[in-house]
C-alpha cells in the first residue's frame, strides 16, 4: 500500500496528493509518469508526476476528475492509501540528458494548459535548479481554474498567466499569448514545451510550426500496463508508430498525428460515461435515453 500524506483541492475537480513511494521518488526525472490503482477492482490510471522529494520518499501527483475512477480517487483523504503505485514510467525529458552548457544557451518557452501545469512544473524547477530560467505560459479556462501559479512563479523566468474568459491575467488562449510574445513583443525562443489537453497541444503545434519553433508535447493516451506490453497507447509520430509509455510520453509535437490521437482517446468514452452514471445514480440511470441501448 502507498500512503497518502497530503490531499488538497487545488481547484474545482483538481486534486493534489503527496504519496509515499520511495522507489519512485528515488529514481524519477522530469517528464516521467506513474500509474496508480486505487483498490482491487480499480483501473490502472496513468498520472503525471508534479513534484518529488527524494529524501522524504514522496511523489506529488495532480489529477482532474474526468471519469468514474478519478472521481472515486478524489474522495481519498490524507492517511488513506493507494493499493498500487508504480513508476517512474516513460522517458525523462530530453533536456535532462543534454549538456548543461549547451542547454544554458537555449531559451525555452513552456506552455501549460489546465492540469498540464502539473507535469510542466518539475521540468521548469529542474531547469531553475540547474541555473536556467525558462519562460512559462500558464493557461486556464477561468481564474478559479489556475493552478500552481505561486510554485511556477518561484522557478520560472517570466510567467504569463492567461485565462480563456479574461477573468485573470492576460485574456485568451495560450496560442494568443505565444503569438503575442513572439511576433508582437519580439521574444526569441529556441524550443517550446507544450503540455495540456490534446486539442490545446494540437493548436500550439500548428502555430509553432508556422513560427518555426520546435515543440515538444507530452502525450497522455489510453494505457493499460504502461511498460510496453499492451500497445493501447500507440501513436502515429511521423512515419512511425510509437508507444507513449516506453518511447514517450514526450514527442516532437510537429510530427504527432493529433487528430488520430484524439479519436483514439474517445475509445472508451461511452463505457466510462456509463460507469460514471452507475456510480452517481446507481441503477436509476436507466432512463431510456434511447441512445445507449441499456447495459446489455
Amino acid at each position, binding site marked *: 500500500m502507498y500512503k497518502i500524506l497530503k490531499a488538497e483541492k487545488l481547484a474545482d475537480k483538481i486534486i493534489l496528493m503527496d504519496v509515499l513511494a520511495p*522507489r*519512485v521518488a*528515488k*529514481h524519477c526525472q522530469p517528464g516521467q509518469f506513474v500509474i496508480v*490503482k486505487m483498490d482491487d*477492482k*480499480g*483501473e*490502472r490510471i496513468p498520472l503525471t508526476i508534479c513534484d518529488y522529494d527524494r529524501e522524504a520518499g514522496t511523489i506529488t501527483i495532480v489529477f482532474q476528475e474526468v471519469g*468514474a*475512477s478519478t472521481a472515486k480517487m478524489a474522495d481519498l483523504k490524507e492517511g488513506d492509501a493507494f*493499493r*498500487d*503505485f*508504480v*513508476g*517512474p*514510467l516513460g522517458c525523462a525529458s530530453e533536456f535532462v540528458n543534454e549538456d548543461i552548457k549547451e542547454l544554458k544557451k537555449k531559451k525555452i518557452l513552456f506552455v501549460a494548459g489546465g492540469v498540464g501545469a502539473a507535469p510542466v512544473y518539475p521540468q521548469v524547477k529542474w531547469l531553475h535548479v540547474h541555473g536556467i530560467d525558462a519562460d512559462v505560459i500558464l493557461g486556464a479556462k477561468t481564474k478559479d481554474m489556475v493552478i500552481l501559479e505561486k510554485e511556477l512563479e518561484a522557478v520560472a523566468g517570466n510567467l504569463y498567466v492567461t485565462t480563456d474568459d479574461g477573468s485573470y491575467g492576460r485574456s485568451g488562449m495560450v496560442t494568443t499569448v505565444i503569438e503575442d510574445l513572439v511576433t508582437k513583443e519580439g521574444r526569441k525562443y529556441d524550443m517550446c514545451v507544450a503540455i495540456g489537453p490534446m486539442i490545446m497541444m494540437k493548436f500550439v503545434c500548428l502555430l509553432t510550426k508556422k513560427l518555426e519553433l520546435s515543440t515538444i508535447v507530452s502525450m497522455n493516451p489510453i494505457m*493499460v*500496463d504502461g*511498460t*510496453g*506490453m*499492451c*500497445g*493501447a497507447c*500507440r*501513436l*502515429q509520430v511521423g512515419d512511425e*508508430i510509437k*508507444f507513449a509509455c*516506453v518511447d514517450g510520453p514526450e514527442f516532437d509535437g510537429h510530427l504527432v498525428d493529433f487528430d*488520430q490521437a484524439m*479519436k*483514439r482517446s*474517445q*475509445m*472508451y468514452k461511452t*463505457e*466510462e460515461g456509463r*460507469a460514471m452514471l452507475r456510480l452517481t445514480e446507481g441503477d436509476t440511470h436507466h432512463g431510456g435515453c434511447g441512445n445507449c441501448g441499456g447495459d446489455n
Partner: protein
Amino acid sequence: MADVLKKVPVREQEPKVRATNFEEVCLGYNQEEAMEEASRCINCKNAKCISGCPVAIDIPGFIKEVKEGNIEEAYKVIGRASALPAICGRVCPQESQCEGKCIRGIKGEPVSIGKLERFVADYALEHDIKPEGPESTNGHKVAVIGSGPSGLTCAGDLAKMGYEVTVFEALHELGGVLVYGIPEFRLPKQKVVAKEIEKVKELGVKFETNVVIGKSTTIDQLIEEEGFEAVFIGSGAGLPMFMGIPGENANGVFSANEYLTRSNLMKAFDESYDTPIAGGKKVAVVGGGNVAMDAARTALRLGAEVHIVYRRSEAELPARVEEVHHAKEEGVIFDLLTNPKEIFVDDNGNVKGMKVIKMELGEPDASGRRRPVEVPGSEYEIEVDTVIMSLGTSPNPLISSTTKGLETNRWKCIVADEEFGKTSKEGVYAGGDAVTGAATVILAMGAGKAGAHGIDEYLKNK
C-alpha cells in the same frame, strides 16, 4: 473394461454452455479416473517421457504413486522437479512433449500425463500439502526479475537450495503471463495460480510488486546498493507487433496483449471491475498461435461472432491441438489461408471492416513450413467491428538498455546460454521469453530451472 488403448476421457463443460462463461473448460479427473488412467502407464525402464519434459519430472515415478492411490507421495515426486504442477498440467503442450514420447502412443493414445499431473497438483492445493522447503537459509541474496513461469521456477528452486530470494514484479499482481495472458477459463487465477504462488511463498521467497526494473531501479543498483549477489532475468516477452497495414490505429484494433490484459489481469469481463473492454460484435483475430486462440475464445465469451484469420492452413496452426479443438467446439470460425490487407475506418475512427486476400501454400521457407503466397485478384471484404492482432511480440528494451554489459542479439533478445542461463554480465542469468522470444510456459520454466542451477554453481564457486 475400458479400452486400454484409449485415454480415460476427461470431463469438460459442454461447449455451448462454456462459450458463455469464464469458468474452467476442463474439469479434470477425480481420483478414481486418475487411478484408472495411471494404470495404463507401463512404467518403462528407459522412460522416454522424462526426456520430453523440459523440467525432467520423474513421470513414471509419480504415476506409479497415483496408481497406488498415494497422491501426496506423487505430489512430492513432481515437486522435486516442478514448482508449478497445477499450472503445467493445464497449459503445457503435452502432445509434443512428454505424451508425444509415450510408448503407449505408438499403438493407441498416450497416457494422459498432463491430466494426471493436474489431478495430483489440484489434490495438493485442496489438501494444502506443503512443498518441501530448506532447513535453513544460506544467507546469500538473489534477485529474480519477473514473477512469470521462469521467475517463479527459478525462485522456487533457489529457495529450496537455501537462498534468500526476492522476486520483483512490474505489474500489481503476481504471475506474469499466467495472470495477464492466459484466460481464466484455461487457468483459474484464484483457485490455481494464486495458490501455487502461495506455495512458492511458503518456501520463503519474498515478492515485491510494482517494481519496474530499468525504471524503479536497475540491475546494477540491485547488486551495488541492495546487496543482491546474483540476478535472474525472467522479464518475459515484450512489445506487441502489428502488421503495418492501413487503418491499424483505428479504434477497435487491439493487440492480443491488450485485449487479454484487459480481460484477464484487469478482469474487464466482470462488470464489478472498473476497467472497460470493447467486446465487439464481430471480431477478427489475426494469427494462429495459442494467444490467438485465447483472444478468440475470450471475445466469444464476451458475446461476439469470432473469426480466426490465419495466412497458412490448419496443419500449420502453431496453437496446441487441444486449443484449436476447443475453439472450434465453442463456435470460433476459422478463415484459413487468408491474410488482412487493410482495415476500413469510419468517420469516427472506428473499425468498420477489413479487406483480406486469399493465400496458397508455396515452397517451404526457412522455418520449413510452406510459405503462404497471395492469390492474385482474390481480395474480398469482411464486415468486422473489432480486429485483434496476435502476431507475437518483440523484446522489451527496459532492462537491456539500462544494464551495463548485458549483451543482446540482433532480435534484441538477451543472450544467455541454455545450460545455465548465463549472460554476458557476471552474476546475471536470464531465461524465458526475454531470451527466446515468445514461447511456452514450460520452456520458460525449464529456463528458470537452468538459471537456478547456474546461479547456485556461480555463488558456490565465488
